[in-house]
């Protein structure tokens, strides 16, 4: 058994599985109970796919594609509201094929999961608006 970097393992096997780290994709992914199944990226990702990519600082991130850009993507974690623009296509390593929640496998292509993703992304948009207004009100109060 070899210790490979995640990129090397995905290039070698085409797939990879592990527990997600951090809370940025909560509640879609739970670090305590889920195991993600990642598949090597071949071609362009679609809106709402979950991408594994490496940031310039070396960290590996699993976030959702919120929009397609020229030569890249706009990403956001399901537990975040700030969009990350300019994620380059060549930094994307893999995409989320599905995940195990306990013993149950949830495919990202399933209708139920797709409906959940659309609902969740819509709620994040409203949350972003609400938080933006609250910040402006707070800043105006502080300015007086």
């Amino acid at each position, binding site marked *: 058994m070899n210790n490979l970097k995640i990129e090397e393992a995905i290039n070698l*096997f085409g*797939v990879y599985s592990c*527990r997600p780290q951090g809370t940025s994709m909560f509640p879609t992914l739970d670090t305590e109970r889920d195991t993600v199944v990642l598949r090597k990226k071949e071609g362009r990702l679609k809106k709402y796919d979950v991408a594994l990519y490496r940031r310039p600082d070396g960290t590996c991130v699993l976030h959702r594609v919120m929009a397609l850009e020229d030569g890249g993507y706009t990403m956001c974690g399901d537990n975040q509201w700030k969009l990350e623009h300019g994620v380059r296509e060549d930094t994307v390593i893999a995409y989320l094929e599905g995940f*195990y929640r306990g*013993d149950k496998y949830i495919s990202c292509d399933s209708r139920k999961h797709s409906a959940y993703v659309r609902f969740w992304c819509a709620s994040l948009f409203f949350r972003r608006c609400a938080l933006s207004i609250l910040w402006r009100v707070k800043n105006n109060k502080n300015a007086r």
Partner: protein
Amino acid sequence: MKIKNGLKLREVGGVNIVVAVGEMAASFKGVVRLNATGTFLWKQLESDTSECELVASLLEKYDVTEEIANADVSAFISMIREAGFLDE
């Protein structure tokens, strides 16, 4: 002997891999890819079986000699035993 609970065989894009779920995922990171023979043996081991039964089922499924079947089963068992995947 049988495969431990918390290890799932899954086909992803035509590749058969072993995925650790639940508590097993805390102790195992990475990926185990199985070829056709490995996948066949893994499925047999999902229920309690013996090395002799594995050899017999391999002989029934594939056109191989008993010597090769014994060697393949032995190598496979050693590999998954070393990885800590077996309940014995």
